[in-house]
């Protein structure tokens, strides 16, 4: 721990420099990245399994995307929104039965062995398809990976699989791990899951439970002159309020994933030396959704669902719960998605009188105490915002005569109550949109999903027409036809309201001014940080 504490002299020197920098205001903006330095970052959770090929989630990527690389990364200006990482090019066959990847030459694993197409084949067939939370769906028809030479991997599918889907899945689902490390023994129990070996710009150095993760520079990285940083340290700060204080005290230089509470941003943006950055999360959109249990006879009635949609003041939610750091939602695809979003869907303006009229029409008249019926409302506990929206929704429902009783659970109990036991009437959930509706969005409304699958349709909703549309889209190869089908999907969901999309939000980073090249791609916080640098 001693090497992480800040010496008094260092602090004095730092503040002297800060004073000097304010005295000389025009240092200029176009700075060339400096080499060296240790970046200290706040981490609010401590994932035990750090293998992104198995656990494709943002909490794991935040740390391990610097160590283990994917075939391609999201990019704001690259073709199809991608830029090459381990793969240099990708080509889908016209029949949808194969995708050919040309791999980067001269890449070495952290243990010195060369990276080859065999590693890609192993990762895809042995990990992404059978073990990965998201890969199970996307790669379900992957039958084989041919490796004609060391730098070519050809994915063969048993059924036509849209190339657009594979492309959109690359940034999050294609982490490549070394075959020679995982070949022996059970993959789930491999020690490299806790101390990952990859090809990325940083190597895993150590983890002290409850204290920090430390990554060191990979001198043999394939990127020219990269990485710039010598070390990245993830300081574990589980308490959200402490991240802001640690930034102000210069104990950390970066707090990503909204580690600083939204309510503090206004104040912190005025602190000299700190900047608030809203970019760098465009590819990680969370959706605030009201999940509905269609087994309740009241909620199975479309008029009641419409009434609830009309009772929610989305602008109020964005303004008050998210303090403006969000957007109102119209349907199951977020507005910031460049490929699929359509605004041409039925919308539900905030209108309490109309909501009341709809409920009267549906036959649920107010009783003498002004109440129509009672509901159980389970707000997901993962975010402050989901809990606060739960409080708001209870009030919004009270205004239309629905008496909602809030039931609070911890994360594990919430997942069990909603996705396994179905012991809810309404739930507030934060599903993630991952660049393609087929990855994690259609399962929110599709029927026939077994009990216990988290973040899927567990509300008993069944719509044959919608199921058919989803099935058709999953085997449509033509990109524009597929996109059209998903536009139709958005219209149908917005019209029939299997769930109610309220808002879309992403995260905020707060960093010291000295950290350069922040937020330069749509998944920056979970990208490899090879070009991130420190000025002082």
């Amino acid at each position, binding site marked *: 721990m001693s090497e992480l504490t800040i010496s008094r002299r260092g602090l004095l020197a730092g503040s002297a420099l800060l004073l000097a920098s304010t005295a000389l205001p025009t240092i200029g903006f176009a700075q060339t990245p400096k080499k060296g330095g240790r970046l200290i970052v706040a981490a609010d959770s401590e994932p035990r399994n750090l293998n992104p090929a198995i656990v494709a989630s943002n909490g794991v990527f935040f740390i391990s995307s610097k160590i283990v690389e994917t075939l391609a990364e999201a990019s704001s200006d690259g073709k199809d929104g991608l830029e090459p990482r381990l793969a240099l090019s990708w080509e889908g066959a016209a029949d949808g039965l194969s995708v050919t990847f040309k791999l980067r030459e001269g890449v070495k694993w952290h243990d010195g062995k060369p990276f080859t197409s065999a590693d890609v084949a192993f990762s895809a067939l042995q990990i992404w398809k059978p073990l990965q939370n998201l890969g199970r769906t996307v790669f379900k028809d992957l039958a084989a990976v041919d490796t004609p030479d060391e730098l070519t991997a050809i994915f063969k599918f048993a059924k036509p699989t849209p190339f657009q889907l594979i492309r959109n899945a690359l940034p999050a689902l294609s982490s490549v791990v070394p075959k020679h490390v995982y070949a022996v023994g059970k993959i789930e129990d491999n020690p490299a899951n806790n101390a990952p070996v990859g090809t990325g710009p940083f190597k895993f150095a150590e983890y002290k439970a409850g204290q920090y993760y430390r990554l060191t520079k990979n001198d043999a990285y394939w990127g020219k002159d990269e990485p710039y940083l010598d070390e990245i340290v993830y300081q574990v700060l589980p308490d*959200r*309020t402490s991240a802001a204080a640690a930034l102000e005290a210069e104990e950390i230089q970066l707090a990503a994933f909204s580690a600083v509470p939204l309510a503090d941003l206004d104040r912190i943006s005025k602190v000299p030396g700190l900047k608030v950055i809203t970019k760098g999360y465009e590819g990680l959109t969370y959706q605030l959704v009201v999940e509905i249990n269609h087994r309740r006879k009241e909620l199975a009635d479309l008029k009641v669902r419409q009434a609830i949609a009309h009772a929610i003041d989305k602008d109020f939610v964005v303004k*008050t719960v998210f303090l403006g750091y969000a957007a109102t939602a119209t349907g199951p695809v977020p507005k910031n998605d460049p490929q699929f979003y359509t605004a041409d869907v039925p919308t539900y303006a905030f209108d309490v009188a109309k909501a009341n009229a709809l409920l009267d029409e549906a036959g649920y008249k107010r009783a003498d105490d002004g109440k129509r019926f009672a509901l159980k409302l389970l707000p997901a506990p993962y975010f402050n915002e989901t809990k606060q929206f739960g*409080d*708001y929704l209870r*009030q919004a429902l009270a205004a239309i005569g629905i008496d909602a*009783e809030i039931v*609070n659970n911890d994360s594990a109990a919430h997942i069990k109550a909603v996705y396994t036991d179905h012991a809810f009437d309404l739930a507030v959930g934060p599903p993630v949109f991952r660049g393609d509706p087929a990855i994690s969005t259609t399962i929110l409304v599709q029927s026939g999903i077994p009990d216990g699958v988290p973040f899927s349709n567990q509300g008993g909703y069944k719509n044959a027409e919608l199921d058919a549309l989803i099935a058709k889209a999953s085997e449509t190869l033509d990109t524009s036809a597929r996109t059209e089908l998903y536009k139709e999907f958005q219209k149908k969901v917005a019209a029939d309201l299997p769930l109610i999309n309220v808002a879309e939000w992403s995260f905020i980073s707060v960093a010291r001014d000295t950290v350069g090249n922040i937020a330069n791609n749509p998944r920056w916080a979970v990208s490899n940080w090879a070009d991130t640098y420190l000025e002082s």
Partner: protein
Amino acid sequence: MSRLHRFFRTPEAIAGALILALLVAMALAAPLLFPGDPQAIAGPALLPPFQDWSLPLGTDRLGRDVLAELFHGARTSLAVGLAAAAAALLIGAAVGTLAGFASGLLDEVLMRVTDAFQTVPSFLLALAFVSIVGPSLGVVVAAIALSAWTGPARVARAEVLSIRERDYVAGARIIGMHPLEIAFREVLPNALPPVLALSSVIVAAAILTEAALSFLGLGDPNRVTWGGMIAEGRTVLRTAPFLSIVPGVALVLTVLGVYLAGEGVVESTAVRRSLS
């Protein structure tokens, strides 16, 4: 000198009684002064106190009236505190009397059970209970009572042990009263005063435990509680400190009031004892 007079002799007791009276008045007046749901959205979010006189203490992150929440929170705090203390005293006195009066095996069993409860930190016990059964007002009361009954049980047993040797107890035995009747009709009433003296401590602890449970998100989410208000305010501590300070001060004053009044009661009975 009447008991009331003796009670009001010390300034601490007067202060305690005044605070308690204020609290009770707040709790009783809450539905009259602030009818309807105190959690209803009443104005713009995060309005600071003393800006708008219709919302004198400002609003929280969703725009709920802090003053209304404070008044309704007093109801919850007081109800939980009193109910939990009453339950704890009831269980404690019953267990203590049975153990003390029966002696032998039953005494051993009951006192070892009491020991077992005492070795687990009481807050941990309440926490575990609520997180398993699920948070609601009744469960919270039960959880606090469960962690607080051991003190009264021990005191009651000690009292009963000395009382049961008295002549009138022997007399009751001779006239053929049922042992349980003797225990609960003859012995218990005389063993009660020192047990009741514990009540102020228990009420104060119960109010604090309830606040702590709510603070950790284990209170009844459908009711306003001061602990829940502090927890809500904590996320915006730097920008809107009043959201935590207002209920925090109310909590401190309440516990102080209960404690001072309790001290006053103990003192007045102590004076009576030394006089007699």
